[in-house]
């Protein structure tokens, strides 16, 4: 981009006003959230790879370049560390950058900027410099992606104090959580489940769902709690339906926020059902599920009827497209795992 001072970013035609219900995909809901945030707050700027005229490889930023112009929406040079590093400087000067990492595995060049600066700046400066940055990362698989396009990299971020890591699983949350992330004074890693981008629901915008740092019980049950997030929420809901047919009453929780972890909501469910399994696409060893299982066990040991299970991807790199169905936790695999407990 050439940032020219002559360029006046055109404000849009007004943030979404409560209107007619529309059928919206998760990607479209994200798009609306960014747009509305940009209308409401002139310090919100958007940049990254191909987010301009193309509208992003997943079209999440579709139309924003046309609406807001070069000063607010721009294609940056192709360098992830540069994208995050310059976002830090912008945030230091009163902007609220929303930046896109094109794919999960392509966020790794920005690892140092995220871990050493985004996460630590506020602490290092005793709160004098806060970084209201949103780093959007499309993640996870089940899209037939070639290598490097299906990673679930959440545990790298959740292992880093100072980062808020959230992930929506449906269009309403996508809108509401992204608005909240952009409004947050602290940096947010916003992980977008690629396989859910095109899932649609009927929705009236603007919509406000539960706070982005809380978990939500999506389906009540009495026998077991399934803890899912992002792409595995749908898997968990399908599992619950199949389980019901087999007489198993499954409660499904959408974690939504990976860091912080909503201990209260999750523990309450676990104390009711006495059994839980956490489901994610990422590999198991040292994965996010390990933290979930450990902390829930520490806090609820005497309520547990069985060890908390991790039903996850295998401890191998994400496979090539023709093999990914064998890698991803499926409802069958989950039900089999649950049946393995002593009941």
């Amino acid at each position, binding site marked *: 981009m050439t940032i020219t*001072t002559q360029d006046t970013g055109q404000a849009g035609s007004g943030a979404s006003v409560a209107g007619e219900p529309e059928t919206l995909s998760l990607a479209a809901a994200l798009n609306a959230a960014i747009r509305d945030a940009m209308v409401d707050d002139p310090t919100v700027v958007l940049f990254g790879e191909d987010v301009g005229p193309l509208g992003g490889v997943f079209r999440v930023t579709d139309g924003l370049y046309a609406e807001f112009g070069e000063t607010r929406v721009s294609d940056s040079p192709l360098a992830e560390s540069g994208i995050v*590093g*310059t976002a*830090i400087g*912008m945030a230091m*000067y009163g902007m609220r950058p929303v930046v896109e990492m094109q794919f999960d595995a392509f966020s790794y060049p920005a690892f140092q900027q995220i871990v050493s600066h985004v996460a630590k700046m506020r602490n290092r400066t*005793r709160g004098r*410099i806060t970084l209201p940055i949103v780093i959007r990362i499309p993640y996870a698989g089940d899209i037939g992606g070639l290598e490097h396009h299906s990673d679930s990299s959440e545990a790298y971020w959740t292992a880093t104090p100072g980062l808020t890591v959230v992930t929506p699983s449906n269009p309403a949350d996508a809108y509401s959580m992204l608005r909240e992330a952009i409004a947050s004074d*602290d940096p947010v890693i916003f992980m977008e489940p690629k396989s859910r981008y095109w899932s649609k629901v009927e929705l009236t915008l603007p919509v406000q769902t539960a706070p982005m740092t809380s978990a939500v019980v999506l389906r009540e049950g009495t026998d077991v709690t399934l803890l899912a997030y992002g792409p595995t929420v749908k898997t968990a809901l399908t599992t619950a339906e199949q389980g019901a047919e087999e007489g198993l009453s499954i409660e499904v929780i959408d974690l939504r926020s990976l860091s912080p972890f909503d201990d209260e909501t999750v523990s309450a469910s676990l104390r009711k059902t006495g059994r839980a399994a956490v489901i994610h696409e990422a590999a198991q060893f040292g994965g996010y599920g390990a933290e979930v299982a450990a902390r829930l066990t520490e806090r609820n040991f005497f309520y547990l009827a069985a060890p908390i299970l991790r039903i996850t991807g295998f401890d191998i790199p994400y496979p090539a497209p023709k093999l990914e169905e064998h890698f991803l936790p499926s409802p069958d695999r989950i039900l089999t795992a649950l049946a393995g407990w002593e009941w």
Partner: protein
Amino acid sequence: MTHSYPMTLNVESSPGEHLPPVQPPVQPPMQPLAQPPRQAPIATPPLLRLIDDAGHAAPAAESGGFALPPLTTLLRLYRQMVVARRFEAQVTALTRQGRLATYPSALGQEACEIAAVASLAPEDWLFPTYRDSIALLTRGVPPEQILASFRGDWHSGYDQQQHRIAPQATPLATQALHAVGLATAAKLKRHSTVALTLLGDGATSEGDAHEAFNFAAVWQAPVVFLVQNNQFAISVPLDKQMACRTIADKAIGYGMPGYYVDGNDVAAMYAVVTAAIDRARSGGGPTLIEGLTYRIEAHTNSDDPSRYRNAADVDVWRGRDPIERLEKYLVSEGALPAAERADITREAEELAAATRDCMTRQATSDPLELFDHLYSPSSARPALAEQRAFLAAELAELAAPSTDKGANR
């Protein structure tokens, strides 16, 4: 040395015909990565300078078209360099006494450090490294606040917003991107703020340096990159970092001006940095400046330079001292009266005394503060509050008289 490898591939054989691999009968030694003599297609360009080593005005041909700053400016720069060096000497002494965990000295680099800061307007931002404490000092950060990080109180001890100085960066070259981002934001807001970032020669090998140069040039950010080429990255000399003539040469590849400046000539450094800042402020985009200087001291107090460089080389560079050079010039111009010298010495000694004093004051670190700053109050985390309470209880127990151990449990 050349080695001939036995051919393992029979180029005559028809495609698909696989021959058993032929092992070289004797493994030749591996080739060194950087084989001297390295190609040097173009001679190193002359250094831009305004005052030569002997303290005389340099010939116009070496000035790059820059004019000598006025004597009053030079006198101010001289004072700042002398004071900064006294600080450096004092802090190095404190470090040897074990009162600071570590301290990277900029002894011998005063011309670059002071010129950088002296060229900035109050609204401008400085993005320094661990090496650049005297730049902070010259911009007005009190010694106690500079030393807070080196003596281990907190990771950054000054008010970054008040001084418009980012935390001293340790991860190399990362701060250059922050400078570009801040400068770009200022440009978007139509502010006249400029950002200047200091980098080491070694840091220019980092990917972030490349990304910062490129982003700055593409976005025409009002930013100045001042690379202090002190010729070493800890133990590694610059010819192991790059194969091109100068660091300044790289600017042309990014589409911005680059200057190869005598980094021990504060007059030249000041003239070039000021011009670059003015250019940035008036919409002319970024500049890359290389100041050729020398790291007289060890990398930090825990380094041992005798393992990788000759004391004789250091002596050569001691002889090219930036302060002595300007002093000779000022004396020859009759611009350094005895009263002025005495006043500069007084200021330097007062600062040294204040620096010693501040080290005797107890740091008032409160362990519970560890939990106070990571998140904004609006995103405070209950689980972190639990950990804070845990430490508070532990501290209370430690503070309690030993006979009542456990009373606070």
